[in-house]
């Protein structure tokens, strides 16, 4: 092991008053791996994402990113380090045209350093990014106000915002929720390509079948605790996971 892991998270804990939302969660992730985070509703998945991305400050524990301690950093600095995230509830800028939504992240220090370019270029880059995530070429959709888009498009816009930052890690919080099967099917090859380019993925997901097409390994949370870790096949065979989350009769083919 000459190379250090891209993420080394140890004993990460978050209390909200008396409730322990995330309880001493530890895991490591190598560069280019795709990690699935699964668990029942309220098991602390989204809180874990918020802790890693700095939107919530951890009560205790440590987050090492490429060997650097980023625990407690402000969220925009963590993004600048190359960790982009999407939100479970899509957060577009409602009264701004769709392609201009992407000009905001493209205006960030990170994107400007990596991409360069002036005013006109950013619109151009934004349109191309939208094409990448499956907005139809030559349609009116990229020029509409973001508030008028259906949910599936908003989720893809979230993904496009992540990609606009040319991140090293992309953290997707329930990207597939609210998307139709055909929309998911059109996104999967893109996720594969992102992975092939060496980008590390962390995906919180309820749609296990689709998730396991992308994920190399998975961790399972229940009541804030990590109850299992391993390859998707191992995880779904774990007895504790079956009872806690999947229900003992459900069989998921990985």
């Amino acid at each position, binding site marked *: 092991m000459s190379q250090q892991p891209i993420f080394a998270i140890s004993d990460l804990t978050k209390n909200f008053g008396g409730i322990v939302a995330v309880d001493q969660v530890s895991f490591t992730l190598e560069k280019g791996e795709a990690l699935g985070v699964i668990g029942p509703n309220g098991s602390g998945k989204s809180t874990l994402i918020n802790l890693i991305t700095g939107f919530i400050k951890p009560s205790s524990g440590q987050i090492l990113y490429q060997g650097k301690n980023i625990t407690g950093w402000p969220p925009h600095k963590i993004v600048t380090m190359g960790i982009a995230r999407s939100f479970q509830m899509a*957060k577009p800028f409602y009264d701004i045209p769709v392609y201009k939504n992407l000009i*905001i992240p493209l205006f960030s220090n990170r994107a400007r350093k990596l991409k360069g370019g002036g*005013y006109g270029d950013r619109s151009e880059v934004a349109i191309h990014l939208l094409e990448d995530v499956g907005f139809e070429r030559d349609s009116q959709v990229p020029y509409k106000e973001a508030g008028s888009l259906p949910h599936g498009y908003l989720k893809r816009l979230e993904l496009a915002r992540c990609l606009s930052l040319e991140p090293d890690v992309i953290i997707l919080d329930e990207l597939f929720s609210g998307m139709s099967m055909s929309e998911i099917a059109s996104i999967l090859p893109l996720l594969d390509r992102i992975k092939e380019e060496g980008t590390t993925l962390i995906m919180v997901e309820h749609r296990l079948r689709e998730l396991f097409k992308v994920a190399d390994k998975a961790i399972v949370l229940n009541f804030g605790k990590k109850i299992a870790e391993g390859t998707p096949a191992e995880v779904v065979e774990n007895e504790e996971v079956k009872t806690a989350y999947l229900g003992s009769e459900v069989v998921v083919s990985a």
Partner: protein
Amino acid sequence: MTKTGYRKERIDRGIKVRTDDIFAIGSFKEISYVAMPRFLVILLLIIFPLLSSVTGIYWQNVMLITCTIALLAISWDMLASVGLLSLGQAMFFGAGAYVTGYLNHNLGLSPLLSIPLATVLGALLCTLLLFPIMRLRGIYFGLITFAIPLLMTRIIEATKILGGTEGLSGLTPLPGLTLELYIIIAVTLICVFGFRRMFDTDYGLVLKAIRNNDRAVIAGGIDIQWYKTQAVFVAALPATFAGAFLTHHYQIVGMPAFALEYSILPLTAVIIGGARSFSGAMLGAFILVPISELLRAFSTLRIVVYCLVLLVFAIGLPEGIFNFVQRKYHQIERLVPMGEVKK
């Protein structure tokens, strides 16, 4: 019961669509469609100070106050554009006023230096003062900005600094009303057109996005705290200038510089004129201030009439006069049948 419904459809006028693309402007008609509204406003403002024999000195002075309130309203609109609700524009006004008063009265700087210095230093002071509360949103930010001007008057009253209750008097006068008017009109126009242009750039887009959804801006790798700081500084500039300028006009600065009306009038002007365009803020001030001067004839009933005007605008035309007129200028409305709808 079924009934054929109609819904209102808004369509851009052909000329609007053609002139949206700068390369399509080829005829005088199209150029004037774009330039005429701006040109008319500028022309009227240039002519007005020359008409002092027609209007009388009184209305020339009203114009000066109007521009002052317009600058404060533009400043309010700028703060609102990044999601900061200000209920204390008097803070900026007073800061500009007292800094120029101190520079002129105590250090003997000429207005040529003290006004620009007070504009920048006053804006810096206000930005520093507001820095700790910039992360607050909505009414919480508003309440604190409301309290600051009240606090300042009490501090000045209690500690007797900066002339205490008597204020600083005997400041250097400005060279004459007509020149004063041209200066403040020029500054107002520069602020309106400058800010409008700024919000067309990518930088302005980021500011707009902060009001829209600040967490998504953070997720875009942008330090919103830093952007808000810049926005507050830029927003403070027109207001501190207004304070500094009017101080030299009156040749005295005192506690009325933090008066409530400097907080309320700009806010009202934006309600009447319409937010988020800066032109609306300016238009609102140009309607509100002359009306409130005309209402002086009603003496105590003035407040009642004044409140009625406000009510009518807040309920009848919440988008503001400017946005309404702009929509009518650019778009036509027509009724289209929706087909059979259940009622």
